[in-house]
């Protein structure tokens, strides 16, 4: 196995699928056309070849070389089926671009009709469409990277750029109940935002796990959903998950590892093992659970970083709220 640097262009041709770079408005010839008609059509459309299509099947391909040969033989009036190349090399639309690049390059084909897995013609690839599409993709990925850089720069400088005695940024997220497929969306946004603000990666990881556990709790155990608030300070995060759900009867009991009231379908999904709160406690520098039956639940978490971090982890000095 040779290890070498993969260039962005190589990465693109390996990861991009044929269907994203092909042209979809294919100029096609029907089997009944004469070579003269094919010649006129190709001249008008300014192309040097076109597939011959019967129904939605590719049955052959005619290029300008074939037209010239027919001209030399004085047979421009005969049908395209007599002069076309019948063994047509095609590409599958879900193939990776690297496969077609090799064919267009090494095997010298100027164009490849693109078919789906049923053999139906869906597009065409030429060196021109390929280069245009790859340049476009490169432009997009370059712009995305630049935008992310600028956004990260702006976000990470907010504490320097804003003048105050004590700056804090508060992010609010709404969590819907029983919306299992969307669960974790808030956590995902929180993780991305913290990365953008350039919170140290080990802290981001702890926050992501704790917040995700808290968000799953809102989804699984409340019938009304709730919200997650993230209060970002220069050296710490105050995060709270609040709901107006049924509340918790016995706070000691829910803190016991392994205790769970989650229904079976949640357990089948790999959740509800009764380790969420224990995991949140382990990940955060301080955790506080406040709840009353019928009055909802509030979970507070604190994460400390920067110079003050050492004093709080594992100690009791973190009880600031």
């Amino acid at each position, binding site marked *: 196995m040779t290890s070498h640097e*993969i260039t962005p262009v190589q990465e693109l041709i390996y990861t991009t699928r044929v269907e994203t770079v092909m042209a979809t408005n294919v100029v096609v010839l029907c089997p009944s056309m004469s070579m003269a008609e094919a010649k006129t059509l190709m001249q008008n459309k300014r192309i040097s070849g076109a597939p011959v299509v019967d129904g939605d099947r590719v049955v052959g391909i005619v290029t300008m070389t074939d037209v010239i040969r027919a001209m030399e033989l004085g047979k421009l009036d005969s049908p395209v089926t007599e002069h076309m190349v019948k063994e047509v090399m095609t590409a599958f639309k879900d193939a990776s671009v690297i496969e077609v690049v090799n064919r267009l390059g090494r095997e010298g084909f100027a164009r490849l009709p693109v078919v789906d897995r049923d053999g139906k013609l869906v597009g065409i690839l030429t060196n021109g469409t390929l280069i245009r599409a790859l340049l476009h993709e490169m432009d997009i990925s370059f712009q995305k990277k630049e935008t992310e850089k600028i956004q990260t720069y702006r976000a990470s400088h907010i504490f320097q750029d804003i003048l105050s005695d004590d700056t804090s940024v508060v992010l609010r997220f709404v969590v819907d109940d029983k919306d299992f497929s969307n669960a974790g969306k808030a956590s995902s946004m929180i993780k991305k935002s913290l990365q953008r603000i350039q919170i140290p990666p080990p802290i981001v990881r702890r926050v992501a796990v704790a917040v995700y556990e808290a968000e799953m709790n809102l989804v699984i155990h409340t019938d009304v959903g709730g919200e997650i608030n993230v209060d970002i300070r220069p050296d710490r995060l105050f995060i709270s998950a609040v709901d107006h759900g049924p509340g918790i009867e016995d706070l000691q009991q829910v803190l016991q590892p392994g205790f769970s009231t989650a229904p079976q379908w949640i357990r089948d999904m790999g959740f509800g093992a009764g380790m969420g709160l224990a*995991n949140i406690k382990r990940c955060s520098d301080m955790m506080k659970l406040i709840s009353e039956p019928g009055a909802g639940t509030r979970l507070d978490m604190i994460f400390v970083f920067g110079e003050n971090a050492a004093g709080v982890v594992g100690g009791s000095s973190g009880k600031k709220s």
Partner: protein
Amino acid sequence: MTIRELVEILSGKILVENHSLDEEVPRGGAADLMSDVLAFGTDRMVLMTGLTNPQVVRTAEMAGINVIVFVRDKKPPHETIEMARDSGVTLVSTGYTMYEACGRLYAAGLAGRGPVKIENDSW
């Protein structure tokens, strides 16, 4: 071990490719319990699992896991694939069982996270 080697050892198929195949995978782990993944998952590791719902991808994203391997040739639903595309997780499927997938990778030198200590207080 690189992702490329890992896929070869598992005779696996890449379903969603979000990392360079030459990227190093430092560790491996296996679980069907997502809480275990959140508790014991380590950064950039590969997770072997028999679950294919979208929350497996979300869990991986949160735990900083780069690669998920679906064992027993399980085909994840469309939503799982979509979520992996969005969240930057690489998905692989293999025909081996969980036991054998883990065994093959471990035998090839891919480490686990070592003994896990559960303290009374924090657990």
